[in-house]
Structure formats: C-alpha cells, structure tokens
C-alpha cells in the first residue's frame, strides 16, 4: 500500500527559500560534523519540500521548513548515507529507547528484540542480493521527532507481523478444535435497509474526530485512558465526548428511520443494544476493517 505523498517540482521562488533556509540554519543543523555541506543540506531539504503540498507555495514552504526537526533530519540522512559518526550519534541517542519502545509495543522480550533487530537491519539498509543498499531512514522527513518516527515504524512492523501470526494461529487453533469441517454460520438476522441507510448517513455526517473516537472505543476497544493520552486531554473529556456523540447519533438515526417510514417501536427495536438475533453473528469478523496483506511499506515512496 502506498503512503500519501503530494509530490511536485519546486518552483524557483521556493528553491530560493530552501537555499536561504539551508544557509541560515546550516550551522545549527549539525550537518557539518557529518560531512554534509551547505549544498548537500539544501538538497536534503529540497527533497523533503518537494513531497509536500507547499512545493509551489513560498510562504508555505517557509512555514514547513521552520516546523521540521532539522537536526534529526540531518542525522537520519547522514546515517542513511553510511556516515560512521552519524551512526555513532544515532546509536548513542536511540539504541536504548528503540529497544524500550519495541518492548512496550510487543510486550514480550524475544518478540521485542526480534522486532527491534529487524528494524535495525532496515535502518542500516542491509542490501539484498544485488540490490542497492537503501536505508529506511530515508523515509524520515523530520515532521515529528526521530524517536517518535522509530516508534511508529516499529508499530507498523508489529501490526504487519502480528496480523500474519494471528491468522496462522487462528487456523492452527481451529484445526486443533476439530473445526476444520465447520460450516460457516449464516447471519439469520434480516437487515432492514432503512436502518443501514440511516446509520450510514448519520455516521457520515459526524466530524472525523467523532468517528475516530467511536471507532477507537467501540471497535478497537481502546480504553478512555489510551484515547485521552493520544489526544492529550483528560479521560473525562473523552468520556463526555463519547457520551454526547453516541446519544446524539442514536437520536438522529432514530429520527431518520422514522422519517423513512418505520414506527417508533421498530426504530427503538433496531437500536437495541443487544438483539437476540445478533447472537449468532460473528461480530469480530463483521467489524474487521483490516486490509488484506501487510498494510505498510509495500510501495512507500522514498523521502
């Protein structure tokens, strides 16, 4: 799967902004210690800016450049270029935290070590037979911290691996349970298209953040604390938001269903929390939003 990148050539004004920025911040960037000269820094920045929406927008480019983590970007690119000094700095700064993050993600020591080791290989850019060595650090563009980026990449790798393992485990378990010949159960509930249509329409009318909250809480079963941490608000704020969104959503869906011709009783029944007709439905399978195969890295563009 591809990553979303806007790409475009730099026009001359934006190029001038990039060169000016490189000249102004060359000393602060630490590029010199890794053998990157001013032109080299400008080239790195040009590569980053050209992949953003601001490629033709002078003020936008300036704002973007001032927002990036320049020093970490330079370090990442120097590592990708195989600079020994850069690797020394990288290992000093990030080695311990990388393993810690891997452990927090995998929650099991051997899996965490395997996860971190495999990422190291990709960061170093171990070449496959005959292929050019390319470090994964080239994808880092300095928009967040390098440490945060390493965590995200670890998490992506973990999600890819975990899902593959989960499928294999599920099959093994099914075989052990003697369910290999089990017939697939049919969903006997008869869905009223008016219900489906009302729910879809009202969900689509929600703000993205509201849908994200609903999905995280009700589909992924994330805790209020986890959501609150991600959004940097208090748990009670998330709780109140969820309460408000779900209450409002139910009311609006009910109203829409009644407008579509359902009686109040039918509408209420359709929105019951637990319906006996649902008991035979494999909800987990129904709700899965995962895409088949590995979701990440497949055709991610170079930074």
């Amino acid at each position, binding site marked *: 799967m591809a990553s979303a990148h806007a790409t475009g050539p730099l026009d001359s004004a934006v190029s001038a902004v990039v060169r000016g920025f490189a000249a102004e911040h060359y000393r602060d960037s630490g590029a010199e210690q890794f053998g990157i000269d001013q032109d080299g820094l400008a080239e790195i920045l040009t590569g980053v800016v050209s992949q953003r929406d601001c490629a033709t927008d002078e003020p936008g480019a300036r704002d973007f450049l001032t927002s990036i983590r320049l020093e970490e970007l330079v370090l990442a690119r120097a590592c990708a270029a195989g600079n020994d000094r850069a690797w020394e700095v990288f290992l000093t700064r990030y080695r311990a935290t990388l393993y810690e993050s891997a452990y927090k993600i995998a929650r099991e020591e051997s899996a965490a070590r395997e996860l971190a080791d495999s990422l190291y290989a990709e960061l170093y850019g171990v070449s496959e037979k005959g292929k050019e060595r390319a470090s994964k650090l080239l994808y880092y563009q300095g928009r967040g911290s390098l440490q945060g980026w390493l965590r995200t990449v670890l998490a992506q790798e973990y999600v890819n691996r975990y899902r593959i393992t989960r499928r294999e485990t599920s099959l093994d378990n099914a075989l052990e349970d003697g369910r290999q010949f089990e017939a697939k159960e049919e969903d006997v509930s008869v869905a009223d298209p008016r219900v489906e249509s009302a729910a879809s329409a009202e969900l689509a009318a929600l703000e993205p953040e509201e849908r994200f909250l*609903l999905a995280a809480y009700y589909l992924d079963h994330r805790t209020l604390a986890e959501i609150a941490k991600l959004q940097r608000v208090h748990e009670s704020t998330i709780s109140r938001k969820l309460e408000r969104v779900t209450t409002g959503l139910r009311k609006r869906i009910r109203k829409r269903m009644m407008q579509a011709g359902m009686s109040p009783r039918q509408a209420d029944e359709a929105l019951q929390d637990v319906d006996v007709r649902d008991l035979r439905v494999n909800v987990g399978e129904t709700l899965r939003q995962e895409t088949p195969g590995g979701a990440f890295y497949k055709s991610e563009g170079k930074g």
Partner: protein
Amino acid sequence: MNRQLPKPIKEALARQAAGDVHPSADALTAFVEHSLPQRESQRVTEHLAQCADCREVVFLASNAMEEPSGAEQKLAAATATRLGWRRWWVWVPAIAAALVIVGIVSQPLFKPGQPERAVAVKGLPPGPPNTQQPVTAAPARESESQPLLNSSAKIEAEKPTAKARVRTKQEKPDANLTETVIADNIPREGPATPTPVAVPKSVSPSSEALGIAAVPVPAAPTHNTFVGGEGQGASSFVAGTRPQAMLRAASGAHGFWRVTSDGHLEHATTPGNWTPVLTDQPATFRVVSVVGNNIWAGGSGGALFHSSDGGQNWSKQPLAADAGAIVSIRFSDAEHGVVITDGGSQWGTSDGGVTWTKE
C-alpha cells in the same frame, strides 16, 4: 462507560473503508506528537476513523511513548481540577464586589490619619471595628505610597481585608495548609517592606483567583503573573515586567517568605521581622515557593535551593548552571514539581528534588 453500541451503528462504522493509501510513518508520528498543521491533522483523523491498521499503529506508538513524569501527571490533574473551577470564575467579580460592599458598610477602613491598608495577619484575630491597626506596614511608608493609589486602587485595597475577614471567621488555618501571601502596593522607591495578606486556600475553591483579585493595585499597571498555587498548598509568585514594584512572597507553617525587589530571600516568623536568608549565595532570587515544610527558592544562574525543614537547613539543587534564571516553581506536593526558567526551559522532579530532568 458502556461499551455497547447498537449493532447497526457498529456495522456502519466498520463499513467505512479507508482505501489503500495510508499516511506515511512521518505523518502518523507528527499526528501522535500533535505537530501536524490542523488541516493535515484533520485528514489523518479522517483516515484513522476508517482504518483499523493505522489506528492500531498510532495507539501502539502513543502507548510506547514515555509516560509523563509523576510531577507532570499530578500537575496535569491539578490543572484539570483548577480548570473545573474556572466555570465559577464568572461569580468571582460579583462575590468580590459583595465582600467589598459588606466591608465598607460594616467596618469603615479608611479613616483620616490612618494608613489606607488594613491588614489581617496570620494567627491574629481581627481587631474591633475602627481600631484595627496595621501590623507590619510602616505608616510613613504607607503615606509615601498613597500618591500611587488612585481612587479605584483604594477600593481594590480593601479586598484583602474583606478576604482576610472571611478567613478569620472560618477558623485558624491548618498548619499544613500553605497560604499565599501577596503584597504588592509597596512604594517603588527604596527597599521593599511588604505587608503580608493571608489568603487561605480554604476560603473558597477559587481562592487563587480571589488572591489575585485581592492584590492592591498600584497606580500604574503592572504585569504580574500568578503561576503557582497548583496542588496542595504550593505557591509561587513571579515577577512581572516591573521588578521594582513587584514582590514575590509566600507563607507557610514556618512563617513568611519573600523575595525582595533587589533579589534577596527573606524570612519572617512574625510579620515585619524579616531576616535575610542564604546571604552567602551570589544568586539573585526571583521566586520562592512553600509546600508545607518545604521551601523552594530560585533565581539567577539556575540557582535553586530547597529546605525540607521550614528553612533551617538548605541544599542547592542540581540544576545545570546554564539553566537560566528560575522564574517559576510549581510543586503539587513535596515530591513532584516543575521549575521554569526565563529561557522557557522546564525541569521536573518526582523525588522531592533529588534528581531533576529537563523536560
């Protein structure tokens, strides 16, 4: 919270498909770190609402982030609590006005020939009406400062008195309760001789706000900022843009503390008897904070001193020498606190100052 969502809604939620294009690790990282521009953050949120894979990634990455230090968590909780009180702030002007009116009607404070400031001092009951005497303020100095007060300032000057009266009506404060002492209408010329005005935490939930309101207003506007007072009894008062007209002071079970306008730390067991403290230190102090028996004083060159026995013994805290001048000290309890320097850097401790971490 109830995890049940009607099945039709759940199904409709799950039917939303994100497609094959995912945000880059770079964008997801910036999203987790809240450094994405708003427009782009909206786009990522939209994607996350539809993509279970990316949601899992951001939650894994977020959960793997370092936990905020204990100090940060406590301070955040204290801030959240304080935010809760903000809804009551709308009543603060009305309450303050009512207290002022009651004060004026029942007990005239400004009599000809008397200093304009009536003061309630910790531990002393208020005197009878019309006989209450200022305890610490020198009359001569008070009269010198008079021209600095305009008519509105005179009305403002009554607020501490009204406030203090409320406290004495309640009862003697708990020994563990830290009070914030604020005194600011000192003359700009000459050394500062402040009058402490006790503002107990127990007066009202928004006593900090009232404490600010209770500060007598000098004729010319100052830009003082109250930044402390979070958590149980922590307080600090920070200089604004006019240090000469500014006093930073606090009080606790062991008396009163202040930083004079020329940057010296002083202590008084009884109001008015100020004794210089840490005189052998070259630092120019900027702020003092009291949490129970713990006294924290900070100033130039990252100087941060701590006493855990009410000022008997002091230890210098291991902050970097290049940390800058400390302008704010916030402790939520004896263990957890944060100091902020004039350069904007922030240092936190969760072990009562044994170790400090730059945040």
